[in-house]
């Protein structure tokens, strides 16, 4: 009988014993590994898995005008969320969504079949239009939900667009005030972070963290929506009339530096900013564009000369023969043949270039350029918008007599419209150079109470009150008696100055027949409430003079705005001189021998009256070469034959 050896059995037991020991060690090591080596990673996973965040979106603050009129607000625009597991027929749902949201069906299918508990269709399904919302509601698809969301709405459409700016898909500010004040406008998202069990049920044992959303503050601006509306209207009219390359307008309260209105052409609707070329919404012309200001800059020269008492407007006189020679360079007056003998007040009224060169020479380069800098040129004004230009001044070392002379009448310096406006505001408000600003107050949207005020900041005292007063009188006379007459408004004592700025072309030379015509005006002259600047870039089919194009626009804006603002009309202003002859004349062209259809091109600055019938012009009245007022009647005689003698 074979017997199994006890030794074998014991060896086997020891083997089992050792094997068991080994297994326990393996498990211990494994657990240790999970716990210590990958434990940190697991800890993160645990937190991720346990904590639930409910996000509470904060309402973005509104943007209001100075009277509380809403310029930007939020409107409900739901977004689509799909729950793939609830979708029975993903093919069909994808097809529907693709149609409604205007997206490829394949992409829609990917969204509705994603292996996630819920999927946001981003960006196609964000912020639906009313039409899309209705379509989604009507189809009532299983697993397709409309989540509450809001989008920015600008009740005035393209009004004030560059200043307001716009927001992106997540209601974040991207441009303009929306960007500049984004931090406070957007508020703070709230969240409820809590630990939950697997079913999403809240765990009471672990304290949850609730951060209430902080709604954005409402931004009250210095903008006066009535003034803005008037400006928008006037620029629209100007664009329709002159088809310019661009246009800008600014209105500022000279007593505070607060911007009452600001607009640019071309403009855009902030709600559809994606449809617009970025060069349009990027360029807020009133603060971005820099160009030679032309005659409006003479205000600065004049203010400096008055403050330095280098000129007496009534007593001092100047003879203008049409040009002035500086270092061998002839600088011409805009009026051929010159203005003749004038008092300095008349020099200002006439915007006489040689007269201002003389003023600049009297001041000297040091003083003139000190004043120019004091008035804020050559550096940003600090307005609360992005994208402001610096402007360019001559390098002090490069300033010779010619540079001094041209600067005196606004050539050779490059400035932004807002710089001019703030400088003129300082010149007429008693000498206080304000920092321009649009923000006025932060308002708690719930209580309606003001949380924070923006202070009006005076940067510098540039001239004295008496100089300012004198200047106001001189500029009022420009409108009453001089080149600014079209800006005259009965009862509101408008003062101002025309400007016709030459543009530098791509070749570095001045462009021909392509000017930025501008006018800067203020009123009432005894106590200015508003400063308005309008610039029209390259107006077509007109004489490119600031007095012709821009002055009437400024006049209308000032008149309507002051009435809208409730400013009392004045009675003691300067009377408008009705028979002032200094409208630039138009030379009558030679029309004889032309055909009838060719005449249309002359009809822009002359009115044509037709006598007789036929295709050929055989005579005209007045004769070719004679000078007439703009818009004067030219009579032409027509005939069927080419010349009158042949019949």
């Amino acid at each position, binding site marked *: 009988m074979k017997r199994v050896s006890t030794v074998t059995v014991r060896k086997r037991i020891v083997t089992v014993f050792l094997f068991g020991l080994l297994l326990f060690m393996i498990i*211990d090591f494994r*657990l*240790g590994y999970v*716990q210590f080596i990958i434990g940190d990673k*697991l800890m993160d996973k*645990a937190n991720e898995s346990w904590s639930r965040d409910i996000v509470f979106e904060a309402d973005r603050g509104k943007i209001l005008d100075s009277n509380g009129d809403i310029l930007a607000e939020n409107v409900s625009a739901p977004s689509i969320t799909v729950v793939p597991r609830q979708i029975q027929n993903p093919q069909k749902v994808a097809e529907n969504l693709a149609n409604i949201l205007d997206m490829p069906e394949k992409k829609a299918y990917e969204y509705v079949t994603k292996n996630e508990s819920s999927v946001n269709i981003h960006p196609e399904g964000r912020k639906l239009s009313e039409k899309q919302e209705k379509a989604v509601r009507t189809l009532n698809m299983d697993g397709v939900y409309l989540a509450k969301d809001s989008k920015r709405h600008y009740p005035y459409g393209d009004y004030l667009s560059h200043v307001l700016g716009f927001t992106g898909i997540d209601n974040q500010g991207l441009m303009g005030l929306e960007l500049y004040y984004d931090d406070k406008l957007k508020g703070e998202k709230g969240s409820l972070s809590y630990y939950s*069990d697997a079913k999403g049920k809240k765990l009471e044992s*672990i304290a949850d963290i609730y951060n209430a959303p902080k709604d954005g503050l409402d931004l009250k601006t210095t903008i006066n929506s009535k003034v803005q509306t008037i400006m928008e209207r006037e620029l629209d009219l100007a664009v329709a009339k002159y088809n310019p390359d661009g246009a800008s307008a600014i209105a500022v309260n000279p007593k505070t530096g607060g911007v009452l209105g600001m607009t640019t052409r071309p403009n855009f609707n902030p709600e559809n900013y994606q449809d617009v070329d970025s060069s349009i919404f990027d360029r807020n012309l009133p603060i971005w564009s820099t160009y030679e200001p032309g005659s409006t800059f003479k205000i600065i020269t004049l203010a400096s000369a008055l403050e330095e008492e280098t000129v007496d407007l009534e007593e001092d006189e100047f003879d203008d023969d049409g040009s002035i020679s500086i270092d061998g360079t002839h600088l011409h007056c805009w009026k051929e043949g010159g203005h003749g003998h004038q008092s300095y007040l008349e020099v200002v009224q006439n915007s006489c270039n040689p007269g201002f060169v003389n003023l600049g020479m009297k001041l000297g380069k040091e003083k003139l350029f000190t004043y120019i800098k004091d008035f804020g040129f050559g550096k940003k004004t600090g307005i609360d918008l992005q994208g402001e230009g610096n402007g360019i001044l001559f390098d002090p070392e490069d300033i010779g007599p010619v540079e001094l002379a041209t600067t005196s009448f606004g050539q050779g310096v490059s400035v932004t419209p807002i710089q001019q406006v703030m400088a003129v505001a300082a010149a007429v408000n008693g000498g206080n150079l304000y920092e321009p600003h649009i923000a006025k107050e932060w308002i708690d949207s719930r209580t309606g109470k003001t949380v924070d005020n923006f202070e009006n900041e005076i940067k510098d005292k540039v001239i004295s009150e008496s100089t300012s007063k004198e200047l106001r009188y001189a500029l009022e006379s420009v409108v009453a008696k001089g080149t600014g007459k079209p800006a005259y408004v009965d009862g509101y004592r408008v003062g101002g100055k025309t400007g016709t700025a030459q543009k530098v072309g791509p070749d570095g030379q001045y462009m021909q027949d392509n000017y930025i015509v501008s006018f800067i005006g203020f009123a009432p002259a005894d106590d200015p409430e508003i400063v308005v600047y309008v610039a029209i870039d390259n107006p077509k089919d007109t004489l490119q003079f600031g007095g012709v194009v821009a002055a009437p626009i400024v006049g209308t804006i000032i008149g309507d705005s002051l009435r809208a603002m409730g400013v009392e009309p004045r009675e003691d202003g300067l009377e408008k001189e009705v028979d002032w002859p200094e409208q630039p004349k138009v030379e009558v062209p030679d029309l004889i021998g032309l055909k009838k259809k060719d005449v249309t091109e002359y009809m822009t600055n002359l009115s044509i009256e037709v006598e007789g019938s036929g295709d050929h012009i055989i005579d005209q009245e007045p004769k070719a070469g004679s000078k007439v007022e703009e818009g004067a009647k030219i009579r032409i005689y027509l005939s069927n034959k080419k010349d009158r003698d042949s019949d």
Partner: protein
Amino acid sequence: MMKMMKKLKDYDFTLIITPILLTAFGTVMIYSASMVSAVVEGFESTHYLFKQLQWFMLGLVGFAFCALFPYKYYQRLIKPIILVIIVLLVGVLLFGEVRNNAKSWFQLGPIHLQPAEFAKLGLIMYLASVYSKKQSYIDEFNKGVLPPLILTGLMLGLIVLQPDIGTAFIIFLIACTIIFSSGIRFKHLFILVAIGLIVLAIALPNMVTDTRIDRFTGAYEPFEAPETGGYHLIQSYIAIGVGGLTGEGLGQSVQKLGYLMEAHTDFIMAIISEELGFVGVVIVIGMLATIVLRGLFIANKCKDSFGALLAIGISSMVGIQAFINLGAISGVLPITGVTLPFISYGGSSLLILLISMGILNNIAKSVNEERQQPETVKEQPGLEKNVLNYRGGRPWSS
């Protein structure tokens, strides 16, 4: 009285205290792990605690009885025991209650019985009994090895039909351990393994279901399939990882709140790890290892081959279950639904384990008693020459 004391002295105190401590600790952990899920399921928070406590009390009675009841009688009672178990296994297939897609339970009033748990111990007794009787001709395959395996196969088949693959697998491994320890020739062992593989090859295609595949892939790449197969393991990992060295504190587990399914049964060790940290884990594993290794130690000491194989079977039952359970929660093995001995919730299982511990204690007692009368045993003639090369050991009785 002195006699009582003397008798008590023969018991192995390690094997009395460790299982009781472990069960008591397990009961506490069951309460911690189940108090929330019990409420979610519509019971009192103490629902599982009290049920387990009842089984604990019943188990202690069983423990005490079996510790006193001489183990050698099981060998005589083996036929009725096996008969009862086969009847139960067939009965559960016919009248059992379906739970978790398996017919594994009998409901007798408020008590749920799991016959497969009883089958474990029954089979251990059977195999220990059979192989100790056949010890003299264990090296003959047809006569010594094969016959008992037919009954083993029958029981396994009945359990697989429930289906309870986990328990069947454990029984299979226990049987392997007993057979291996019984002194079977390696040649025969290979034949058995070959047979096993063939059976597996036939059975496997029927057993492979998507769920099982998920569980396998889940065990090795849990983060690849977080929603399906990997879910439980990831949750288990998180629980273990969060625990760190000393844990979050008793009762502080978050994973038990619905993240980790079966927190009080299969995954209780993950909760222990989360609440008590690595320290708690090492203590529990240490106690389990103590029981298993102590059992094997006793088996080694036991001169009666039935007692020795019984001890091996019981120890391996605890060890194998512990290994499969801990392997599953730590990602070494696929998740098969095997509970952790003494700790996990489960009445039948706990009752059987405590009874087994009682039996083990009885074996230990007899080993100690024998050691105190060494002369009489040493005098047995005729066996010495077979074990000449063995240092002081004793041959198996034949």
